[in-house]
């Protein structure tokens, strides 16, 4: 994965946007696009847009940063949490998937996995150049999946500080010419371990994360707005859960690390989430990696799992 995306040089043609796109407008556009496609038939392209979207000189609002850090359990330091940078880049990711030539319906896409390399710490005083593009359209046993690649650099510099790869699934969408992979081999049944932490997530968890991340997707906001989109209740943002797990790993992760998470089952609110963090040490007792897994303590169903490892 790293070799594939990590070069920093791609053939994508940059489209420079004057400012960060508005997420709420993107959600409205996505709804309109969904309605249009329903009326006029599905988009029949199978190629991904070759353009990357870019915004230069993005500034961070320190009050939002502090609120974000407090919400997910990070100490309010001057370094941006890796999940906060994901939230910063998210409108650009959405805008690429909102293009008319993007072949999958944006609304209802499911975040399957997320992979981040925090290579160089970013401070809230740094102005940032952020780009996003889509790659690697491919089949999934339940539909079609695609990667959104986001890169963050200090303004005017070439070196990538933060690289994020978010994999989304358009469930039930099968595009011509893209083979459905053979069904995944049966995964070993998840055996519930002893928890090292227990999260008590209130019904307002989604609203609270929306306020600090800017992601006001209705499926996270309230029972009513979630039901309008066909969910039985509102669900927690995946990146809220993953960012809390990253915070729980704690200071042993250092300044640069890789952070991976696979989302298994949505977290319906309110609820309790049990978490286990396992530390993997090297021969000299130095920290190598922390693995995390989270599950519903009542049903034993796994919600997500992943790791934070030294880069």
């Amino acid at each position, binding site marked *: 994965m790293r070799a594939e995306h990590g070069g920093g040089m791609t053939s994508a043609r940059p489209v420079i946007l004057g400012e960060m796109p508005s997420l709420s407008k993107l959600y409205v556009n996505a709804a309109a696009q969904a309605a249009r496609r329903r009326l006029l038939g599905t988009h029949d392209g199978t190629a991904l847009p070759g353009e990357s979207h870019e915004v230069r000189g993005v500034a961070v609002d320190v009050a939002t940063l502090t609120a974000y850090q407090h919400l997910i359990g990070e100490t309010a330091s001057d370094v941006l949490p890796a999940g906060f940078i994901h939230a910063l880049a998210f409108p650009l990711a959405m805008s690429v998937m909102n293009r008319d030539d993007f072949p999958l319906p944006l609304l209802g896409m499911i975040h399957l996995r997320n992979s981040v390399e925090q290579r160089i710490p970013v401070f809230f005083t740094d102005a940032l150049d952020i780009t996003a593009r889509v790659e690697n359209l491919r089949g999934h046993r339940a539909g079609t999946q695609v990667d959104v690649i986001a890169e963050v650099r200090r303004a005017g510099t070439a070196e990538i500080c933060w690289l994020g790869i978010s994999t989304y699934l358009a469930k039930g969408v099968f595009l011509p010419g893209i083979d459905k992979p053979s069904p995944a081999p049966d995964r070993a049944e998840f055996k519930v371990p002893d*928890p090292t*932490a*227990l999260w*008590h997530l209130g019904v307002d968890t989604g609203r609270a994360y929306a306020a600090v991340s800017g992601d006001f997707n209705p499926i996270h906001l309230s029972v009513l707005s979630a039901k309008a989109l066909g969910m039985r209740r509102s669900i927690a943002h995946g990146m809220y859960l993953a960012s809390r797990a990253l915070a*729980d790993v704690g200071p042993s992760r250092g300044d640069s690390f890789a952070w991976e998470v696979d989302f298994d089952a949505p977290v319906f609110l309110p609820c309790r989430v*049990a978490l*286990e*963090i396992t530390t993997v040490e090297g021969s000299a007792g130095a920290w190598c990696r922390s693995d995390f897994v989270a599950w519903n303590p*009542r049903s034993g169903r796994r919600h997500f799992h992943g790791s934070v490892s030294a880069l």
Partner: protein
Amino acid sequence: MSIDGQSTAGPEEAGSLTAGIPGLRRAVIVGGNRIPFARAGGAYAKSANLDMLTAALDGLIARFGLQDERIGEVAAGAVLKHSRDFNLTREAVLGSALSAETPAYDLQQACATGLETVVGLANKIKLGQIDSAVAGGVDSASDAPVVVSEGLREVILDLSRAKTLPQRLQILSRLRPKDLAPLAPGTAEPRTGLSMGEHQALTTAQWKISREAQDELAYNSHRNLAAAYDSGFFDDLLTPYRGLSRDGNLRADTSLEKLATLKPVFGKNLGADATMTAGNSTPLTDGASTVLLASEAWADAHDLPKLAAVVDAEAAAVDFVHGKDGLLMAPVFAVPRLLARQGLTLADIDFFEIHEAFAATVLSTLAAWEDEEFCRTRLGLEGAFGSVDRSRLNVNGSSLAAGHPFAATGGRIVASLAKQLHAKGSATGRPARGLVSVCAAGGQGVVAILESL
């Protein structure tokens, strides 16, 4: 024997540990006083921490004739503390019969608060900085602080900084109905969200501590405490308060059968065998305790008893956050280090006071010390640390029966143990040694050795 690479020094001279490090003088325990502990919502439901600490302090003053005395220093603390009580101990001194010229400070180390005040003040006496001191602690689970929501708190703070009416109105408009709901203090560890009971439930399962063993320890705690009351042991350790003259939690008539009927309360959702009940866990409690410490010269000059000396102490902490060790297991590490420094083994201890946060905490501690593999790999010992003679353990009852007003527990234990050691030492004509072990939130623990005089 070497623990964590520390070299160990033997005792100063055979028989007594308290002959003293050259240049240091002894810190002696003169006596103690506490109020009976009450179950939360019981006899002390409306009493504040300041009321209870002052009551315990005034009883101590009356017992030892300290009216108008300028004490070297008073240190106490509370775990659940109102922000208005920022100078709780000094306020208690001002409200007591002590000289108003007695300085005081607050200390907070979760459940180890009380023992740490004893250790810190004893060290000042040993160094010659003060000649007398009162250590103590208080807690009220009934009169606990209630906190306003973050939303309301931010609005109030921003309002106080606003300069104009439009600014104030704009700030007020941020208030939402949910911001008005108050928050009660929780018992969850901040970094894990697991309550102390849930943390212990994991440790209990890890060390395979049975329900029967826990109930038996709880039963002995009640039986021993009741016997101590019946024999008059607490007559000079306690001042009645608000109609209580015995600890409200004491069930002298409890039985193993009754304890066996209780349903588990901790560990039900953790995938572990649930064995911890309200009977073998400490209840939320209100109460206060104090201990009078002095140099030998000061005690002699005031014609006061010298029960025991504070010999040495050790603090430890464990990395519990990701489950490397159990939350309440720090004393498991502290005690071997302390005994090694004093050239002692478990067999040299006449009385063990291991705070009963939960029956399973005591039993997990004992199990760890008997586990060869654990002692070798984690404590750096050559084999198992050893077994604690159960007939020497918590002989006058402990927190399961008396209750556990967090910061007051250390003072309760130190005063009772000093008296017990003095009686044993006087009867046998040789110094009697006692070990105090208190676990605390945050994966911490403080342990100390006392020796009779």
